[in-house]
């Protein structure tokens, strides 16, 4: 309401000047390479001399390629869901906690960001491996006789990725939940709503911006997490980043790798767009009873 005092025209004029340096960086280091990538993908042969849509046709008619894409998108969905389910209560607790506990929660949430992805990933290998912490504990307790297979499984990978990407979910959630006026929950209660109704009718719809931001970030990070996917997933599971790497680096098929990139990018953008559309709809129909 306060911003109404500034005419929209002024905002644009100042905004353009201030945004120019970053815009330039984006143009040179992001837009231009992307354009080059697209240009490369429009060639039918490996040395990029013959124009055509052959690479796209090849990918979209190849069941193996499509299954890699599908597996990657599914992996992202599973990781995002797990992060949301585990992360929301943490963000909620942060909102309700005292100052001291809030600091501790933030520290714990941020801690994964302060260690290298490689280190974190190897930690998961130590935890999930055949002679890892979980297996040796369960065996010494006599609960299992042979080690469980957790490393190189979809479940193990989802858990490891969820841990690695958790800050990307929790931080936007903390911000969004922190912005919700605490009086709203009191108002809801005084009007006769129980805890669950208050949560689903008031708190959840109002945390939607944080949920969308968190899901988008987590999703994008999970499906492109090359190191964790490769090390915890192992050689038997192939996801888009590794597929792309093999095509470009090992097989030197640059146009096909470029086409994979473009298809991957479009698929991710489509899903991000879906997230925000769903979120917007949830906000509009807050009272959907």
């Amino acid at each position, binding site marked *: 309401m306060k911003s109404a005092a500034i005419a929209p025209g002024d905002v644009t004029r100042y905004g353009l000047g201030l945004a120019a340096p970053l815009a330039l960086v984006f143009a040179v280091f992001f837009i231009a390479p992307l354009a080059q990538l697209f240009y490369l993908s429009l060639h039918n042969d490996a040395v990029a001399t013959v124009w055509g849509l052959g690479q796209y046709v090849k990918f979209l008619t190849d069941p193996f390629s499509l299954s890699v894409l599908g597996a990657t998108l599914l992996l992202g969905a599973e990781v995002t869901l797990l992060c949301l389910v585990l992360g929301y209560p943490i963000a909620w607790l942060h909102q309700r906690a005292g100052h001291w506990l809030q600091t501790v929660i933030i520290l714990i949430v941020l801690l994964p960001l302060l260690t290298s992805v490689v280190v974190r990933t190897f930690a998961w290998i130590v935890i999930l491996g055949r002679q890892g912490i979980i297996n040796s504990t369960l065996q010494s307790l006599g609960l299992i006789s042979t080690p469980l297979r957790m490393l190189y499984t979809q479940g193990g990978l989802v858990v490891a990725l969820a841990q690695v990407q958790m800050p990307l979910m929790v931080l936007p959630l903390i911000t969004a939940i922190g912005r919700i*006026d605490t009086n709203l929950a*009191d108002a809801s209660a*005084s009007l006769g*709503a129980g805890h669950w109704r208050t949560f689903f009718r008031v708190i959840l719809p109002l945390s939607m911006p944080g949920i969308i931001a968190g899901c988008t970030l987590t999703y994008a990070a999970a499906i492109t997490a090359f190191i964790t996917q490769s090390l915890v997933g192992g050689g038997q599971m192939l996801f888009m980043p590794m597929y792309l790497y093999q095509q470009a680096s090992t097989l030197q098929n640059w146009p096909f790798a470029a086409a994979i990139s473009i298809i991957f990018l479009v698929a991710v953008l489509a899903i991000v767009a879906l997230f925000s559309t769903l979120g917007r709809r949830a*906000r509009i129909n807050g*009272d959907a009873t």
Partner: protein
Amino acid sequence: MAGGAEAKSLVLDRITHRFAGGTLAVSDINLDVKGGEIIALLGPSGCGKTTLLRIIAGFIGQSEGRVIIGKDVVDALPPNRRAVGIVFQNYALFPHLTISENVGYGLAARGVDKATRRGEAQRLLEMVQLGALGARLPRQLSGGQQQRVALARALAIKPSILLLDEPFAALDKNLRLDMQIEVKRLQRMAGITTLIVTHDQEEALSMADRVAVLSHGQLEQFGTPSEIYDNPQTLFVNTFVGTANRMKGTVIAAGPTGARVQLEAGGEIIGRAPKPLRASDKVVVCLRPEHLHFVSDESGFAGEIGMALPLGATVVHEIRMRDGQSIKISQARTGDTSLRDAGATVRIAPLGPGLATIFPE
């Protein structure tokens, strides 16, 4: 709604609350509110009035004492089972719901079907003169309109008690008076027992049937606005409600309800004493600016004009007494009221005996 269920009484029975750190928020508060009354809880910030409101609403469980609504002790009931309507200071409208959905929220929580809810919300919105705005979102409304919505939302659940937390603090002065009249009208119409928490004495005196003045978690006085203003029982009430000049002195002679005091500023004064006094007690004498006048004879006490403030309907002079204290004197502005020059020597005296109130120091 008029002529509906009989308005419920509210009794606070020896309410004491300590915060987690051990700080005493309110101490031994007894209030007996009759059905349909408007009560103001008046006090400066930190006096415990908001804590009291949150205890009545059920957001805080008091350390000791009982809250009784009608014939029921409600201490064991959570906020959502107390049927206490609240209008929050910032209105706390649900920003993602339309005005109509906001008003219908309490009914939805009670399982009322959508069509009935819409109709009831519309009826309430028309009652607060916002019938055409049901489809808007709260942020599209002005402050005064948002407050009407908050009121309609609280009334929709047909509460037994209505609590208003600093309801007019966020409104500008002209709108505030309109809303005060509006709230009083709606309260009379609905006949709901109402508690207003406020730090604004004018608001408390104009809106409430009875006013409870709180200070440091203690109930200082509970009475009608006239009793509070004309017959304050404590020094705090006398100085917090309205303005009062405070003059130090020593009791010369004391009776059961009054005393004669020698003032340090010179002169003697006779006043009421709410608490019994004895001769030679050190006291504070409170005298309201409108209970003083300039005199031309030798009665009263001498001083010199410090400043003259023409405040519209009244004229206030600040007078420096001989002992260095300053005293305000307020006169209604009539045709011949003139401002006096600074530095002029004057004598002032109470308009009559018994207008001063005397408290132990």
